[in-house]
C-alpha cells in the first residue's frame, strides 16, 4: 500500500515540478508577481512529495517487502540493516530517486535561504530548477519506476552485490549525487542570469556558495569511491581512469574552474560570459556522467542498443538542456559586458590561466573517455542504420579515416601521460597566482616573497632524491610539488597576517575564505605528494606461504600464523591470521579475508591494512595451493593515506570558505553591491 502511495507521490511531484517550471518563468517574463509566487510553495511541495516517495521505498527495503521487484532484485532478509537502508540507492531506480530527492532539496533550499534574491531572479532560478526536476521525475516514472510490484513475490531476495555491502561505498553515491545535482544550481543561476540579461557581483556571490558546496560534495564522493577501491578490490589501486570514474572527475574539474572564475565575477565584475558558460558546461558534464554510467554505452555501443529506452531518454535530456542553454548563451552573452580592467600580471590573469588548465584537463579526460565510442561508431560497418530516416553510408569511410570496423581501448597509460602535465603545470603556477594582487601586480615582488616556499620545495627535492638513490624522478618531483603547494599556502597566510606584533591574533582573525583557500590548496599538495609517493615506491610480494612462514618486505616481517573458517551474517569467510612485525617486535595482527556470499554467488577479498602515516602495509589472502600453503600478496604502500587526507583537506577548505562571513551576510540582506568592489 505504502509503495502505491509513494508512486502516487512521485506522480504528484512531477505535476508540481511542471507547475514550478511553467508559471514562475512566464510570471518573471511578464512581471506577474502572483505567478512568480508559485515558485516557493511548489519547490517545497516537490521536495516533500519526493521525500515521501523516498521514505516509502526505504520502508519497503527495511521491511524486506519482496513484492516489490526492486527489493527482490537488490536485497535479502539476512542482509545487515545498514545495507538494507543503503541498498535503496545501490541500484539504478533507487539511485535515480535519490537524485530527484536531492534535486528537489536544492530547489527547496533556494526557497529557504534565498530571501535576499531579487524576485525575478529567484522565480527564474526556481523555474529552471523545476524544469530539471520535472524532466528527471518523468525519466524516473516512465523508464525506471522503482515501485513496480511482482505478481508472485518470492520467499527471499537476490541480495545486493556484496562489493557494495561496505561502509565506504554505502555513502559514496549520496555524496556524489549531492555534487552532481548541486551543479544544477549553478546551471539554474546561469540560465536565470541569461534570461535576466545581467550578471553582476551579487550574482557571482550567489552562485559561488552553491558551486563550492557541489564541489565539496564531489570531492568527498570521489575520495570515498577511491578509498573504497583501495581497500576493497584487493590490490590497492586507487584510481583506474574507468569511464565511470571519469564521469565524476570531469564535473569536479569544471566545478573547480567555476569556483575560481566566480570569484573574478564577484570581486572584479570580469569573466562574466565565461563563468556563465562554465556553469552550463559543469552541469552538462554531470548529465553526461549520468548518461555514460546509466545507458550501458561504456561497455559498448551495442550494449547501449540492448536497453535503448533509458539511454535515449538521458541523451535527449542532455541534448535538451545543453542545446537550450547554449543557444540562450549564444543569443544573450553579448549582454555580459565586463567592467573590471586589469594588467597582464594580476590575480585575474592567474585565475584565467587556472581556468584554461582545468578546462583543458577536463577536455582531455572527456576526449579519452569517449574516444573508443567515437572510433567504434565511426568505423562501424560502413553503413549507418538511422531507422526511419533510412540507411546512410558512413562518411568516415569516404574520407578514408577508417576502412574496417575497429575497436580500440583508452586506458590508464594514456590518461597518465595526457593528463598529468596539466596538473603539474597547475601545481607549479598555483602559489604564484594565489599571491598575485588584483588589478595589477609586480611579478618580481611576488616571486621574492615566495622564496621560503621555493627553498622548502627544493630541500624536499634534494632530500628525497638522495634518500631514494635516483631511481625515478616521479617520487622526488611529486613530493617537491606537494611541499611547494603546502608551504606556498603557509607563506600566503603569513603574508596576509600583516607585519609586526599581534600577528598570530590577526592570523586567527583572517577571513574564513582566506583560511579555506589555503587549506584547499595545501590539500591539493598533500594529494599530489601521496599519489607520487604511492606510485613511485610501492613494493609488493606475491608468493605461496605456508603456515608459520614469514615474508620480509621493505623492513616489515609479515608472518602467516594460520588460517581459519568464519561464518558471517550473510557470508562465509576464509580468514588469514597474520602477524606484522618490525625489527623483531610485533606491531599488530592483520586479518585478511576471502568471503563468499552464497545468495549473490559472489566472492570478495577483504584486504587487511595496517594504516600508517608514512606507509600502509596491505595483506591479501588468496587460494589454498595444491602443494600446501596459501597464495598471499603483501604490499607496502608509502604515503597512501595522504591521497585521501589531501582530499579531506580540500573539502574542509571548501567548508571553511563556505562559512565565510560574506555569504552569511549576503544571504540575509538584499543589497546591491557597488560596481567597484575594492580589491583586497
Amino acid at each position: 500500500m505504502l509503495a502505491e502511495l509513494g508512486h502516487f507521490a512521485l506522480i504528484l511531484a512531477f505535476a508540481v515540478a511542471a507547475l514550478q517550471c511553467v508559471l514562475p518563468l512566464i510570471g518573471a517574463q511578464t512581471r506577474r508577481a502572483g505567478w512568480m509566487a508559485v515558485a516557493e510553495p511548489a519547490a517545497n511541495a516537490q521536495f516533500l512529495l519526493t521525500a515521501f516517495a523516498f521514505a516509502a521505498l526505504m520502508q519497503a527495503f527495511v521491511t524486506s517487502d519482496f513484492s516489490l521487484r526492486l527489493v527482490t532484485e537488490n536485497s535479502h532478509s539476512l542482509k545487515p540493516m545498514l545495507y538494507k537502508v543503503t541498498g535503496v540507492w545501490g541500484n539504478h531506480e533507487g539511485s535515480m530517486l535519490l537524485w530527484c530527492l536531492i534535486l528537489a532539496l536544492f530547489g527547496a533550499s533556494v526557497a529557504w535561504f534565498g530571501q535576499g534574491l531579487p524576485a525575478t531572479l529567484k522565480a527564474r532560478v526556481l523555474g529552471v530548477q523545476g524544469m530539471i526536476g520535472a524532466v528527471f521525475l518523468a525519466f524516473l516514472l516512465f523508464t525506471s519506476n522503482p515501485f513496480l510490484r511482482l505478481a508472485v513475490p518470492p520467499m527471499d531476495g537476490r541480495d545486493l552485490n556484496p562489493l557494495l555491502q561496505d561502509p565506504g561505498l554505502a555513502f559514496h553515491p549520496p555524496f556524489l549525487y549531492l555534487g552532481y545535482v548541486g551543479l544544477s544550481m549553478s546551471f539554474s543561476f546561469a540560465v536565470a542570469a541569461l534570461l535576466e540579461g545581467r550578471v553582476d557581483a551579487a550574482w557571482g556571490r550567489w552562485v559561488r556558495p552553491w558551486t563550492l558546496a557541489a564541489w565539496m560534495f564531489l570531492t568527498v564522493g570521489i575520495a570515498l569511491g577511491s578509498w573504497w577501491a583501495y581497500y576493497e578490490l584487493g590490490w590497492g589501486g586507487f584510481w583506474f581512469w574507468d569511464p565511470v570514474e571519469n564521469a565524476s572527475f570531469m564535473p569536479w574539474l569544471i566545478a573547480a574552474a567555476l569556483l575560481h572564475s566566480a570569484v573574478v565575477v564577484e570581486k572584479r565584475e570580469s569573466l562574466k560570459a565565461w563563468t556563465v558558460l562554465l556553469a552550463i558546461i559543469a552541469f552538462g558534464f554531470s548529465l553526461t556522467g549520468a548518461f555514460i554510467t546509466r545507458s550501458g554505452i561504456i561497455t559498448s555501443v551495442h550494449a547501449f542498443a540492448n536497453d535503448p529506452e533509458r539511454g535515449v531518454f538521458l541523451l535527449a535530456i542532455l541534448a535538451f538542456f545543453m542545446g537550450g542553454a547554449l543557444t540562450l548563451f549564444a543569443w544573450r552573452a553579448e549582454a555580459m559586458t565586463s567592467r573590471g580592467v586589469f594588467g597582464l600580471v594580476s590575480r585575474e590573469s592567474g585565475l584565467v590561466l587556472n581556468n584554461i588548465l582545468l578546462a583543458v584537463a577536463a577536455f582531455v579526460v572527456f576526449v579519452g573517455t569517449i574516444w573508443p565510442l567515437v572510433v567504434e561508431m565511426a568505423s562501424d560497418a560502413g553503413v549507418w542504420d538511422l531507422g526511419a530516416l533510412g540507411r546512410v553510408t558512413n562518411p568516415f569511410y569516404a574520407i578514408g579515416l577508417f576502412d574496417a570496423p575497429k575497436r580500440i581501448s583508452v586506458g590508464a597509460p594514456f590518461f597518465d601521460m595526457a593528463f598529468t602535465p596539466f596538473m603539474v603545470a597547475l601545481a607549479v603556477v598555483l602559489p604564484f597566482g594565489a599571491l598575485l594582487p588584483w588589478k595589477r601586480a609586480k611579478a618580481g615582488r611576488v616571486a621574492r616573497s615566495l622564496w621560503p616556499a621555493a627553498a622548502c620545495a627544493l630541500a624536499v627535492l634534494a632530500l628525497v632524491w638522495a634518500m631514494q638513490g635516483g631511481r625515478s624522478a616521479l617520487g622526488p618531483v611529486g613530493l617537491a610539488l606537494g611541499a611547494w603547494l603546502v608551504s606556498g599556502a603557509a607563506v600566503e597566510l603569513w603574508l596576509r597576517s600583516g607585519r609586526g606584533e599581534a600577528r598570530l591574533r590577526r592570523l586567527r582573525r583572517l577571513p574564513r575564505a582566506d583560511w579555506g583557500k589555503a587549506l584547499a590548496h595545501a590539500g591539493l599538495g598533500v594529494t599530489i605528494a601521496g599519489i607520487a609517493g604511492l606510485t613511485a615506491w610501492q613494493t609488493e610480494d606475491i608468493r605461496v606461504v605456508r603456515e608459520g612462514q614469514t615474508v620480509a618486505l621493505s623492513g616489515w616481517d609479515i608472518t602467516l600464523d594460520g588460517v581459519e573458517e568464519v561464518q558471517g551474517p550473510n557470508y562465509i569467510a576464509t580468514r588469514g591470521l597474520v602477524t606484522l612485525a618490525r625489527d623483531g617486535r610485533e606491531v599488530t595482527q592483520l586479518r585478511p579475508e576471502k568471503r563468499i556470499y552464497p545468495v549473490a554467488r559472489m566472492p570478495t577479498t577483504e584486504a587487511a591494512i595496517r594504516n600508517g602515516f608514512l606507509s600502509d602495509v596491505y595483506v591479501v589472502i588468496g587460494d589454498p595451493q595444491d602443494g600446501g600453503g596459501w597464495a598471499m600478496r603483501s604490499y607496502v604502500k608509502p604515503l597512501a593515506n595522504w591521497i585521501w587526507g589531501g582530499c579531506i583537506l580540500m573539502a574542509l577548505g571548501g567548508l571553511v570558505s563556505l562559512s565565510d562571513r560574506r555569504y552569511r551576510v549576503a544571504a540575509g540582506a538584499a543589497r546591491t553591491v557597488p560596481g567597484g568592489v575594492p580589491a583586497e
Partner: protein
Amino acid sequence: MRRGAIRAALLALALWSGPALAVQPDEVMDDPALEARARELSKELRCLVCRNESIDDSNADLARDLRLLVRERLAAGDSDAEVIDFVTDRYGEYVLLKPTTGGANLILWVAGPAMLLAGLGVGALYLRRRSRAAAVTEDGLSPEEEARLRRLLEE
C-alpha cells in the same frame, strides 16, 4: 550441521574459477628484472573480457593466459616492443590500453595540446584587451600619471 554448510560453501568456492587474485605466485618469473618488465607490460595490455581492466589487475582466466604469454615471450628474449607487437598481432589493437598514435588516433593524442594552445591563445588575446583597457584605469589616470602621483605621495 552448520559446519557442514560452511564446508560445502568452501568447496563451492574452491571450484569456482572467479576469485583467483590477479598475478599468481606460480606466474612470477625467477629473474626479478624480467618480472618487473612483465609487470610494466601487463599494465599496458587490456584484459579482453573485462571492463577496462589491465591484465595485471584482472582475475579473469584469459588475463592469466595473456600474462603467461607475455612472460613466455620475455623469457624467449623478446624486447618490450616485440612483445607488444606479438600480442597486438594476435588480439588486435583493442588490447592496447595506450592507443597507437597512428591514423585516426592522432586526433586523440593531439586534441589536448591543440586545445591548450587554443585556450592559451584566446586567453592571451582576452588579457591583452583587458590590460589595454587598463592603460586608462578606472580613476582615469594613465600609468605615467600614476607613477607621478606615487612619486608625489612618497615625497
